């Protein structure tokens, strides 16, 4: 292989990084890795959080990060790469400061997610897993993120933006690109950077758990019915017990 050419493809998995970690970064990584390993009875279990930790430093899973994980956990680089390439949250190339994910699984797609995706993708001029030239926003189509009662849903660095529209999502990405604080519907009071978010996912608390609401309005609909705050009309009597037994048999 020639040493002159770059990666064969911009998305070459886990492309090597030329620079080794500087001594201070390496020392911090080693210290953090020890804390992560200590959480588990067997150290290989530390691999997923360690890869999140690498992303908190490098912004994606770098070759030097793979080497670091392998050394810490007595694995081969192939074993680490095999894991890193399995999970969608591990990025194989530099990620933007903000990952913006539009849910395009069936329910959100039908409720407006497809239209949001088309609009924001066209607005930014990028497709799935691509990053704006300013390095601010990486756009993704994401799968169901367990917030279907708030469809259509958009995630920014894995914070919830509920009940979105094409206009609100364009505003979101523009605010992120302009460096303005944006506030999730249910989450911390502002969206942190991809690297900061990755450090939380590595299991290092950022002290922001008490920010934001406990529950959004949709989560409370049943409670409002039960308390009588929300009234409703029964459209038909419930089936008689005999009828329901027949259906069961």
């Amino acid at each position: 292989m020639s040493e002159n050419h770059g990666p064969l493809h911009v998305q070459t998995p886990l492309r090597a990084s030329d620079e080794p970690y500087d001594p201070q970064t390496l020392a911090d990584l080693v210290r953090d890795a020890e804390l992560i390993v200590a959480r588990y009875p067997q150290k290989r279990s530390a691999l997923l959080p360690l890869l999140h930790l690498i992303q908190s430093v490098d912004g994606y899973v770098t070759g030097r990060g793979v080497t670091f994980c392998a050394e810490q956990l007595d694995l081969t680089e192939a074993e680490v790469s095999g894991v890193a390439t399995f999970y969608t949250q591990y990025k194989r190339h530099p990620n933007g400061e903000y990952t913006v994910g539009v849910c395009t699984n069936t329910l959100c797609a039908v409720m407006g997610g497809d239209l949001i995706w088309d609009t924001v993708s066209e607005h930014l001029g990028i497709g799935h897993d691509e990053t704006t030239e300013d390095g601010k926003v990486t756009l993704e189509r994401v799968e169901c993120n367990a917030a279907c009662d708030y469809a259509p849903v958009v995630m920014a660095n894995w914070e919830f933006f509920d009940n979105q529209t094409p206009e609100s999502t364009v505003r979101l990405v523009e605010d992120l690109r302009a460096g303005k604080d944006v506030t999730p519907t249910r989450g911390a009071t502002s969206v942190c950077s991809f690297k900061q978010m990755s450090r939380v996912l590595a299991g290092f608390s950022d002290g922001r758990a008490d920010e934001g609401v406990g529950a959004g309005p949709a989560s409370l609909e049943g409670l409002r019915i039960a308390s009588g705050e929300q009234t409703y009309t029964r459209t038909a009597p419930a089936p008689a017990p005999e009828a329901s037994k027949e259906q069961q048999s």
Partner: protein
Amino acid sequence: MTDLTPILTEFWDHPNSWTLETYEDKQGYQALRKALAMPAADLVQMTKDSGLRGRGGAGFPTGMKWGFLPPPDGGPRYLVVNADESEPGTCKDIPLMMAAPQFLIEGVAITSYAIGCNHAFIYLRGEVVHVYRRLLRAVEEAYAAGYLGKDILGTGFDLDVTVHAGAGAYICGEETALLDSLEGRRGQPRLKPPFPAVAGLYARPTVVNNVESIASIPPILSRGADWFADMGTEKSQGFGIFSLSGHVTRPGQYEAPLGITLRELVDMAGGIREGHRLKFWTPGGSSTPIFTDAHWDVPLDFESVAAAGSMLGTRALQIFDETVSVVRAVSRWTDFYAHESCGKCTPCREGTFWLKQIMTRLEHGQGTQEDIDKLVDICDNILGRSFCALGDGATSPITSAVQYFREEFGAGTSQPWWELFPPEKSVLFPVRAKETVSA
């Protein structure tokens, strides 16, 4: 007529619902005190007596699962909570852990004591950073209050809890794939037997339970197995969170006894979107065969839903009105299964690949006459032949949709879905005329 039963959702509207202080004000951790004064075997029996069945989709009796652990041999035993909620349509565990994580932590402590576990894990999907913050904080608070750690409440019982974030993979919701992932591997399912009860995490006896199952343990212990068993139906006892999404006036979380019907729930949710009518819905997520407007009054319990040809699953009711193309909906779910297939077994890996191509043809109105039968035939070769339930789940929407809406698949041989079902009619916000959706 069924009334809602807010138990796990009871104080989600409290301004600091997630804190230990709030939880203790609501009698939190009284159940743990009670549990630690009981023989562990009695707790397993109580859970069996309550009739609690797994709330993660499969509905396996929780107490029986605990009872499958072999007798203690002096080595470690583990509790692993499956908090990888990813089934399309399912959205109950995430709001529970965001609003009231201490239910889960207390349930973990009680369950761990019941099964003789001193180190429990909560495997949370990685795509919900604020829920991870809340769980980390909840565990921290529980340690500080002496509900976790060494010599809990002076009883000599020790328990450590590790909250672990995944990294994006639907398959990790399958319990053995979750264990492989928690061991730092690719999340691929294991051959069973041995079951996790015998050889689970680190090949040690392990119980894997869903978040809602474990969170239900403190209320059951506080109020008694009979209280729980009196709710619901004869074989599907207790309550559960029903998640309504899509074309209803008030989508949301409705906690109710099992056996409530779609009609009752949709009434509470303010009806189907105004001016529209029900077309099809999932009773328990995308992996459960779809239902139609013929199923308004099926009691939503494990037996009745199965008798009607589907599965209760996770009580994830995704509701679609008459503006929605079945072919479009099913095709997108098929994309999902093809994307999430882990690649370990051939029927699922190759089968979802072929299903996706055929569904895409039908979406574009370019299907052939043979395509519908071919779809059903491929499904027949995946169902029951895959390594785990992901492959089975991939077939459910297709076979059920062909069963109920075969003519729409037929239309997929000549006309794209967006001509038959203009997508702007389905969306939940006003659409300007010039905007259109491409497939």
